[in-house]
């Protein structure tokens, strides 16, 4: 059994069919990639998997449990975390606070109105260690909207990581980054690989083909190909489309 399984997912917005009978499975400890052209339905797929949208049909199972139609909060609490393509940070908070508020340690005392969070050394340690994992040590007290673009990208992952997920969904983590930023982010994702299960949507094929254990190609709201990077290099559709050109 795979850690995370989606079966027969369909989603439409009005007359537009965005997802059509999508079946995906992500094995524990693996790094899976999702690729496809713009507008293929990749982000919608993530949104359905993480509870932002309810699927019209199909089911989502995580660790053997049916999580179809649960709210983002409920899914997050079960150990599914995600980052966003368009950045979604707590902009007025420092990098440390962004990460701290996302930790289960703080979530568990979420209704405590008396304890000084600034004096909670465990919360600070947890948050600082997450920042270190995403390469933001030394930036603890910088306000999120004063960070550089690349640092904000890293913090975006940091916030998702702080929730101590079993599976981490990253939606185009390199969006808008230059070559150097992408390389740094690739190193970061590589370091996270094997620590937890990761699913990445990515446009940068070099990035994906060098990191992923398994890749699914989505086009027109359907999975049109699936396999290891090597298998996909042989895949006729991938070869013919410019998607495979870089690989």
């Amino acid at each position, binding site marked *: 059994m795979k850690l995370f399984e989606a079966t027969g997912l369909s989603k439409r917005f009005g007359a537009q069919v965005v997802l059509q009978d999508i079946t995906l499975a992500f094995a524990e400890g693996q790094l899976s990639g999702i690729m496809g052209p713009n507008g293929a339905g990749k982000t919608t797929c993530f949104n359905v998997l993480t509870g932002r949208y309810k699927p019209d049909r199909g089911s989502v199972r995580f660790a053997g449990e049916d999580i179809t139609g649960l709210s983002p909060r409920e899914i*997050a609490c079960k150990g599914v975390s*995600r980052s966003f393509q368009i950045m979604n*940070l*707590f902009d*007025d*908070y420092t990098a440390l606070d962004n990460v701290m508020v996302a930790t289960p340690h703080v979530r568990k005392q*979420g*209704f405590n109105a008396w304890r000084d969070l600034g004096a909670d050394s465990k919360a600070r340690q947890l948050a600082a260690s997450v920042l270190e994992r995403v390469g933001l040590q030394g930036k603890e007290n910088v306000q999120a909207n004063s960070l550089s673009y690349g640092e904000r990208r890293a913090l975006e992952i940091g*916030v998702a990581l702080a929730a101590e997920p079993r599976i981490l969904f990253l939606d185009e983590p390199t969006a808008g980054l230059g070559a150097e930023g992408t390389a740094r982010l690739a190193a970061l994702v590589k370091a996270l690989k094997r620590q937890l299960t990761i699913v990445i949507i990515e446009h940068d094929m070099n990035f994906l083909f060098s990191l992923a254990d398994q890749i699914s190609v989505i086009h027109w709201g359907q999975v049109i190909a699936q396999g290891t990077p090597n298998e996909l290099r042989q895949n006729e559709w991938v070869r013919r489309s410019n998607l495979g050109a870089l690989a």
Partner: protein
Amino acid sequence: MQLSPGRAPLFPLPMVLTLVFLLSTPLWVTRVGLYQYLALEIMIWMLFALGYNLLLAFTGLPSFGHGAFFGAGAYAFGLLQLRVWPNLWFDLFGAVLVTAALGALVALFISHRRGIYYALLTIAFGQVFWFVANKWHTVTGGEDGLLNIKRLPADFGFFSFSLVSNDGLFYFCTIVFALVLIGLWRLIHSPLGRIFSAIKQNETRAAFVGYNVWLYKWLVFTISTAIAGLAGAMFAMAQQSAYPNVMSLHNSGFVVMMVLIGGGMVSFWGPLIGATFFILARDLLGAYTETWLLWYGLIFMAMVLFKPEGVAGAWQDWRAKVQRSKLTSASAAASARGAA
């Protein structure tokens, strides 16, 4: 709003200054030509504005009908005293509970909203409250309101403290105010307060890291209305009556203006400055002209145009400037030494 990182002081300087300022008023307030009741009223509005600011500035939820809950507290206090049990503790706690329950009920209908829709709904509910207070003659006394609300003694069992004089009521209310002030100061630094603020910044992300955003928004509204109810109950004691005007749209607007002018958006202490400024302006400008609100309104407009962060914002800017000039002069001195 930025909180300084690290441990929060238990009794920060502005808190101490505020309480010393308030508690010292009996010594000097009449000498400067004012009167003790004014200090009492300022404090009551401070309390109302602080609770309101938890909602507006810390959680980013614009309620423009908050006067309704101030009024509900005043009416609840009066009704409990006149009809149920004339006991200060019972009436005071009862008023807070009743107002919180009303707030919790209203919050059920608005907590899935934000921004302008939230604001409009709060105005609508505020008007409902005002209308009920005006029309439900048999309970609220209609336009006359509730008269003859008494200042019952604070009975501690072993001794009893009379609140009949303005001084007595003032001391009692200051103690209650101080307790709420300390509680709110703790709250904004607590996990709960930090989550409120996270929700203000990004509701979506808060939900995706596992917070029940709706529940937190419901809770902050309820807490804020409970404090409004407490302030309202004190106001009923101060005025010895409760009348529809206390829950009018005007009153809802006043608290917004206090918070904004004082700088509540950038500082926890802003509402304290704003409430003082407003009540003083009312009395001092009001002594010269009936149209004082016009002048106050113009001050408000100028503030929003030129310094939307309010008095507290101006203060923060000034301090940052002083710090910068200190730094540059220090570095200039250092380089001068280096050159020598």
